[in-house]
């Protein structure tokens, strides 16, 4: 395949240079440091971009203008917010469990950072292509609920506790649906590895190849991850009109900003996984054996494909947020246990039949 910018050359160049110049242990350490800095940089950049995007999308949905005074077209708005949150006072109120209260935002942040590892940002550009990539993502994303429960309990505040418990119930139950819809693609691919899943889509994305069951799985996945990242219409954990701020009621300044950032990073990650599973990740739009068409599509760099798809899904989630009213907690649990989960289970049976009989393209 022809690509204009190939990240593999760049990473190989750095890798080779490091191992030629230094002894292996040092080279490994330097690589770790480089990856760490890159991930933190990506975090900061994504946080700024996504917060601004949320505000602009909300303005677009509500026929407003959105931030447009700070910097050109309001582009510096989220930078100003970040700087303000950095220099704002970070309180630790009396009566909280200090250790857990201060630990919780970092746990949320670390969980979000660990999730970056198996995501393929472009062709041959991946931090850790481990053989259980998708399962790893499912596993680590369940650590997030612990951070929320910790924050909610240690705040010593009834709103926080209620928000945390709601959030726990919600995340644990919606994880099942998300897992089932991830499994549909795993069944079709026959592998949990992210790179395998992406290469399996080189002649068409699963959402096209897998007939209607995969489409259903995609819809269920989007609903479930919207709930799992605690975003409206499923933002029971921080329902402002009922719980003032939910689990982060008592957090201020930078500790709150870490929660805020972790939420947006989680949104990015679930959308990236969704794009990888259903929309082919960095794989350009290929249609079967149409060589000419595929060749044209290959000229668009793979990172552009990946970020394009991911941001499309993020836009979808923001669209949900500013369109639907919030669900009540019983409606939320009913939706999961009475509709999504049974549909998902039947759906995975259908997909298994399709995969065994090789009906997919």
């Amino acid at each position, binding site marked *: 395949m022809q690509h204009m910018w190939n990240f593999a050359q760049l990473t190989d160049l750095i890798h080779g240079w490091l191992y030629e110049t230094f002894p292996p242990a040092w080279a490994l350490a330097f690589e770790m440091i480089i990856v760490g800095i890159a991930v933190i940089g990506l975090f900061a950049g994504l946080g700024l971009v996504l917060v601004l995007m949320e505000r602009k999308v909300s303005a677009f949905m509500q026929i407003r203008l959105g931030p447009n005074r700070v910097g050109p077209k309001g582009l510096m708005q989220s930078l100003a917010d970040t700087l303000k949150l950095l220099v704002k006072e970070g309180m630790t109120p009396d009566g909280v469990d200090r250790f857990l209260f201060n630990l919780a935002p970092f746990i949320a942040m670390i969980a979000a950072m660990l999730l970056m590892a198996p995501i393929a940002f472009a062709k041959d550009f991946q931090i850790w292509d481990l053989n*259980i990539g998708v*399962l790893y993502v499912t*596993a680590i994303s369940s650590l997030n*609920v*612990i951070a929320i429960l910790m924050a909610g309990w240690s705040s010593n505040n009834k709103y926080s506790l209620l928000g945390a418990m709601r959030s726990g119930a919600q995340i644990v139950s919606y994880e099942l649906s998300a897992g089932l819809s991830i499994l549909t693609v795993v069944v079709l691919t026959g592998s949990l590895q992210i790179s395998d899943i992406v290469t399996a889509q080189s002649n068409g994305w699963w959402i096209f190849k897998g007939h209607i069951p995969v489409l259903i799985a995609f819809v269920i996945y989007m609903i479930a991850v919207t709930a799992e990242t605690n975003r409206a219409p499923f933002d029971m954990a921080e329902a402002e009109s009922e719980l003032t701020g939910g689990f982060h009621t008592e957090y201020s300044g930078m500790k709150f900003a870490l929660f805020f950032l972790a939420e947006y990073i989680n949104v990015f990650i679930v959308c990236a996984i969704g794009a990888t599973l259903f929309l082919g990740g960095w794989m350009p739009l290929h249609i079967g054996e149409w060589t000419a068409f595929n060749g044209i599509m290959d000229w668009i760099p793979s990172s552009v494909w990946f970020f394009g798809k991911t941001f499309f899904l993020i836009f979808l989630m923001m669209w949900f947020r500013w369109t639907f009213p919030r669900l009540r907690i019983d409606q939320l649990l009913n939706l999961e246990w009475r509709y999504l989960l049974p549909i998902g289970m039947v759906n995975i049976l259908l997909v298994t039949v399709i995969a065994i009989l090789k009906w997919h393209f």
Partner: protein
Amino acid sequence: MKGETIVFYLLAALTLVSAAMAVGTRRIFRSAVYLLSSLIGIAGLYFWMRFEFAAAVQIVVYAGGIAVLIIFSVFLTQRAGDDMPTPPMLRTIAAAGAALLGMGLVMLQLVAHPFPTPAVAEVDRSVSAIGRRMLATGDDGFALPFEVVSLLLLAAMIGCIVIAMRAKPNQP
């Protein structure tokens, strides 16, 4: 010293120290959090041994399931903010003595017993191999335990549904 060795000792320290804190602390919520970090340390050990599937399952089951279950039951049944009463001195000493004695015996056995360390080819730890073994009926298959556990799970699910079902309102 290799980097791997350092990582191993860090993970071992995390596991053991947080396990000890989990049984030692007097606040029940903190105890649950320490337990969770100990279990994550074990998952790290699995990653260290390159059993990625076992590690991921460990995190899914314990962080996603059991820790949340324990924390919820703490919230719903205990007064999570209060300190638990300290156990009587005699019981502490007896328990510590029993644990140390058992530990010593096990260590004696461990040191005395030479385990074979064959240089066999690397094990196929892929998920599909584990899956085949789970459903194999032959000499080293796990079909029977798998089915028994499935039956147990089914019973548990039905029990959950029965408990959660709303009692029918009495028809007048």
